[in-house]
């Protein structure tokens, strides 16, 4: 193991300033719950604080944060108490009806598809890059992306039929 150079609080502030929203969006895309996303955000940056080696580049740093966010998200949803005492929606406040509609559709996608969708469409990674980030074969990522798109179109189609029926009634 190399020289232990723990990150200072000031450095952490800079990293949060640069990557905080990226981490938060990724966490939220996985769990679609504000409370879980908050927990994951904290966990990721506390892990970052404890990391004891330097990054080769900004891309390397970003990739590390993405991997840790996904790992934290997975363990957040399996390791902590399921918050089902009181129904807590914990959704981010979206005001635009189109955004609300899209958020609702995305909610119905399995988590693994949401992550691939987010990394591809928002972070702009290629399927090969996503496969490296997630430790899966490129063919698996391509299949997941195709299935996610198919599922999204189907959900949107079903939704427009419901809307049409409601209008007709």
């Amino acid at each position, binding site marked *: *193991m190399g020289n232990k150079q*723990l990150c200072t*609080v000031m450095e*952490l*502030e800079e990293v*949060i300033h640069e990557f*905080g*929203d990226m*981490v*938060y*969006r990724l966490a*939220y*895309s996985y769990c679609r719950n504000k409370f879980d996303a*908050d927990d994951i*955000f*904290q966990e990721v*940056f*506390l892990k970052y*604080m*404890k*990391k*004891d*080696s330097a990054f080769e580049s900004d891309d390397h740093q970003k990739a*590390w944060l993405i*991997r*840790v966010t*996904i*790992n934290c998200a*997975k*363990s957040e949803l*399996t*390791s*902590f*108490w*399921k*918050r*089902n*005492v*009181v129904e*807590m929606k914990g959704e*981010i*406040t*979206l*005001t*635009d009806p*189109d*955004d609300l509609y*899209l*958020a609702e559709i995305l909610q119905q996608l399995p988590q693994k598809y949401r992550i691939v*969708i*987010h990394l591809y*469409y*928002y972070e702009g990674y290629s399927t090969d890059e996503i496969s490296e980030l*997630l*430790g*899966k*074969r490129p063919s698996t990522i391509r299949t997941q992306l195709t299935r996610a798109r198919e599922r*999204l179109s189907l959900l949107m189609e079903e939704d427009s039929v419901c809307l049409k029926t409601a209008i007709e009634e």
Partner: protein
Amino acid sequence: MFEDSYRRMNENVTASRDLIEKTIELAQRRNKRHKHAPAAILVALILVLSGTALAAKVTTGDWLGFVINTDKIVDFQELVTNPGESIVCGDYRITLRSAVGDDSTYFILFDLDTVSGKPLIGEDLTPMPISDSLPADIYLNHFINTSYDDLGGWGVASSVIRIDDGSNPAKASFIQCLQFSNSGQAPEWIKLSVKSIDAIINDNNEQQNVILAEGDWQIVISGQTNTDRVEHRIGDSIFRVTPLSISIYSNTALMEMNSGIKLEMDDGSTMSISEVSDLSGFEDGIITDWQMTAVFSSVIDPEQVVAIIIDGERISLK
């Protein structure tokens, strides 16, 4: 078009100022706690060593005493319906070895191995066998569904620790710890639905997530639980101590997830606690139900606990 809509929606998803400030505050506090790192490392080492001893003795079925170094071993009953039962998916096999528990916590001991005897690595996923890493750097994530029917609408927290020494590349042993957020009664049975087996490997400080197998395996564990427990009511809060854990029930949060917790025993000794989980119920943004459960690394006599110390603040239970 989808891309544009997705981008626009996500622009509104940001970390709040409050969250950022809280995270930095937590980091500052953790930084101060680094002074205590040697003690923390010592505790971790003791747990790993205990785990190694456990792995060697596992075939006896009476493994609790090896995890738990105490003079007073509580008489737990075996809970596994069919110890030795295996579930197989592809080349991966999970074998249930033993389980013990009380009304708030279950420990389940199981092995993961390959039927063919091949090393436990994901197909084409990583060139590195798990055994090349230190056992302490490996975590096995299970996706576990537990029947909530008997839990009064509450939930279950789970964590897992690998306890073998990694000497057999085709086999690993784990203890799964389940902590129930219950209203006083343990469920009569637990159904573990394992959706996938993931290994998170620390390779040169890089975390790699390796999926070993995906599937849908189920094991049902049923039996009687040990119901020894002592309850203390202090103000509006209830402190419930069992041989394996302490739970606090309150209408307000008494501590944070990362708080340092110790138990003070009647002989003056103290015991640090890890594996803390909490759960809150909210109404209009205000906590109305709060529960914390912390699991011990050794079995205790609940009657011997005289106080709980949270972040240095002592709460007397006697």
